[in-house]
């Protein structure tokens, strides 16, 4: 092994490194908890945990400097630290089985949380009593939907994630007779009527509702009680030339129409959708409070679930602490609106949801074995010791 390799192994084999990493993690979590008051829970996750370095802006300037290792960086050290320590220091033996189980569980937990961060999708469904829904909508991600509505019996949807609107590359899809060329993109912006503004910024739009509106870019918000309104200018380009530049935004609820070659398309920027191979119909919603108070006791949605393959057609009750797991998704009762006529369900898609259960069972078992061995040893020694006072 080279000197560098030996040095690395010695570095990662150190228990002092473990202690240092754990203390740094504690400080990171503590700072992140305090910062939640300002940033909200999403902002904190981006800044502290899903990052390699935590940056702080220098007061009075736009300059940001890295001041602390982020969650990813700490995990990137902890994992090799754990692995190297096991390969170099510990022998596989019954006495050490507790430590082994604990640390394997820990590795699994770290990996599992990393996977969840990458794979988990959080969506929601809002539906009124009597309504049927076949899709859920993302809280934060948006998409540009280009819908071919020419045929009366069905719509054909091409959905473009907004991240593509941020680039320079034109978007081409075999289902569309034109290209979408991104012109400008704002992750959050407010729209106003130009007629009501004293000196509006020039607009880039030449077609649709865009020419009448002014775009005011706004900073991205991470607060749970506020939403971002992604906004973009896109040009619809055909082989015969441009059909115009359109302003699309999640603030514009009505679709804008584009006609070409006798086909009609709707352009709309909306929350990203996840379509299900089944349909949910809300038949009843109940919201109980404790008598004489405003304290909520329970809320529950009664839902008819009907799968496309016709195998399932049954009634389900989703209520607090009692989600529905179906079709790779979990549906939770999250809230209500509209005088108890609308239910809000949270829909989570996380293929790795079982990982933390397994890893935590391993760690708990490991700790039990490890401390159990200590305890038995303690009582053995006591038993042998001359009579205690």
């Amino acid at each position: 092994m080279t000197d560098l390799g030996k040095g690395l192994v010695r570095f990662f084999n150190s228990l002092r490194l473990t202690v240092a990493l754990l203390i740094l993690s504690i400080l990171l979590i503590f700072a992140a908890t305090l910062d939640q008051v300002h940033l909200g829970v999403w902002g904190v996750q981006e800044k502290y945990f899903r990052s390699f370095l935590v940056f702080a802006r220098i007061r009075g300037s736009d300059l940001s400097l890295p001041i602390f290792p982020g969650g990813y960086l700490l995990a990137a050290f902890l994992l090799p630290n754990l692995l190297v320590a096991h390969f170099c220091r510990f022998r596989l033996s019954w006495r050490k089985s507790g430590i082994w189980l604990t640390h394997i569980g820990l590795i699994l937990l770290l990996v599992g949380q990393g996977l969840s961060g990458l794979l988990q999708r959080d969506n929601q469904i809002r539906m009124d009593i009597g309504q049927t829904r076949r899709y859920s909508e993302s809280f934060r991600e948006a998409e540009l939907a280009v819908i071919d509505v020419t045929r009366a019996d069905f719509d054909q949807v091409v959905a473009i994630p907004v991240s593509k609107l941020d680039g320079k590359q034109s978007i081409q899809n075999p289902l569309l007779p034109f290209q979408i060329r991104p012109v400008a993109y704002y992750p959050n912006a407010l729209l106003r009527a130009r007629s009501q503004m004293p000196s509006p910024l020039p607009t880039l739009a030449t077609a649709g509702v865009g020419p009448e509106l002014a775009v005011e870019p706004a900073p991205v918000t991470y607060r749970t009680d506020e939403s971002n309104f992604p906004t973009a200018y896109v040009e619809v380009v055909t082989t015969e030339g441009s059909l115009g530049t359109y302003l699309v935004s999640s603030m514009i609820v009505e679709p804008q129409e584009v006609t070409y070659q006798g086909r009609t398309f709707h352009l709309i920027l909306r929350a990203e959708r996840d379509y299900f191979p089944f349909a949910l119909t809300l038949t009843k919603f109940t919201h109980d409070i404790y008598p004489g108070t405003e304290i909520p006791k329970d809320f529950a949605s009664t839902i008819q679930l009907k799968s496309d393959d016709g195998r399932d057609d049954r009634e389900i009750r989703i209520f607090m602490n009692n989600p529905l797991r179906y079709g790779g998704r979990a549906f939770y009762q999250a809230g209500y609106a509209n005088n108890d006529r609308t239910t809000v369900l949270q829909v989570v898609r996380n293929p790795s949801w079982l990982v933390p259960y397994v890893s935590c069972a391993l760690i708990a078992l490991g700790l039990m074995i490890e401390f159990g061995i200590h305890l038995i040893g303690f009582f053995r020694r006591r038993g042998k010791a001359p009579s205690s006072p």
Partner: protein
Amino acid sequence: MRKNFSTLVSLLLLAWVGATLLPSGNQGSFDLSGVGRLPVLADGRLKPLDTIARTSLLMIQGRQRVEAPSGVTVEPVAWLLDVFYRPSLADSYPIFRIDHPDVLSIFGLGTGDGTIGVRFSFVQLQSKLSELDRQADLAVGVDATVRTPFQRAVVELRDHVAYYARLKYTVEPAGNDDLLSDLGDPARLAADQSALDAMRDFSLLRVIPPARSDGRPDQWRSVGRALLEPEAAGPETTASLSRVRSYAALGAAWRDGDSAAFNDQVKAYAADLTANLGAVARKSAWEAYFNKVDPFTSSMALYVLAFLLAAGSWLRWPEGLGRCALRAMEFGFVLATAGILVRMWLEERPPVTNLYSSALFIGWGSVGLCLLLERLNRNAVASAAGGMIGFSTLIIAHHLALSGDTMEMMRAVLDSNFWLSTHVVTVTTGYAATFLAGFLAIIYILRGVLTRSLDPRTAESLARMVYGIVCFATFFSFVGTVLGGIWADQSWGRFWGWDPKENGALIIVLWNAVILHCRWGGIIRQRGLMAMAVFGNIVTSWSWFGTNMLGIGLHSYGFTSAAFYGLITFVASQLLLIALVLVPRERWRSRAAATP
């Protein structure tokens, strides 16, 4: 003689505990205990009038003891009867606690006008209530977290005044003190219409039960509703009207000072409830008895005694005093256990449901562990630590009880006995153990630095105890935190969400892991272990209370700033103790103990 001494102490303690379980009967000729047992519905829970009286007084004036305008101390329930039936007399009880001088100046009052300078009567406040209202409206516009002390004080006082006003018109409409004769006369009752409307809409208490026990809590009705919205003639209406009459008759007898008539009414009404709502009446009577016995206060006294005896035993006569200390702690523990069990039965809940009960449980868990430790090492160290933690947690619980009823209903997300009894109980046990390790370390430090009593043998045994408890704490806080994650996954779809309370629990797990790794790696020895265990106190108190003070997240249950200063003081004291460990070994008074 010496051997007999500890037996004698045990017998005395036993007699004292027995005496606290038999609370004195009625002071005067009125059957106040009987009234105190009557159940009503408030805040979604069925509870006795005695609880209503005590929690109202705690909330409004910060203590249960109440003085009549004449200066005589009266039973809380007697005050409540005056509020119901003699409102003009009740208005002159000095019960509104006002500390802020600027709030007093709203009313043109000075500290000289109040009882002990801080308690004032409704009469004294009456003329300037509109100004209080205006000030409170101004303050409410400000976000609760950034209000000034004055703004918080006016909002709080307005809430108390409103609460008192709503309590006043529970049984009799405003300006009417002869409901009994009105009940027989529809024309006179109709004249009360608007006052009855107000009672129906604003009454805090629903005092009129459904006819029979098969009724659910939501069928209890306020007097206003019972009189204004009689259901179609039937047994239900007859029963509720006759109960309104009982309450009105009770009032008439109370006003007339006619104890015989009063006691007859109480007896008849209690018989009616026992016959028709047996289970409710029984529980309510138990709760009233529980309030009177107040086992937690007795157990607090025993814990103090245990601590003093244990500390004394290190100076002289270790065996005898040590045994007495253990006995006192055991009795305190038994009382606290009984108290927690009764609360669980009354609430039909696992032991920990809110901050108040978490304080009870942390104390209980720590003392329980101390009893085990004391059996293993008979050196009174665990008795001292147990006494100290038991006492501190009960003091904390006492202060948390000032916000009102401690048996409140659980919000929908938390309404799950399964998760409350697994996650919450385990994680709270983890808190208790981490605190215990910290307090044992405090004993090590204080005895080592300040006294000569820490011999190597005791030091070694303390180090073993701290190490063992840290292992225990790691296990329980880890499992508890994980169970919380599983609950979160089951109820809103994410295993971990970086919520402040979750982070707090995780930090405890990580800190305990740091201690263990340092110990295994030989990075720390005895003194380092003690310093780190004391720091564990800071970590735990922050997750217990500090995270709630941030006012964000799913677990935050609203909190006052008084606790904030308490927390700061506690943290400062722990830092001071850690600084003491760093005192060079030569300066320790117990030199022998100070191995590196």
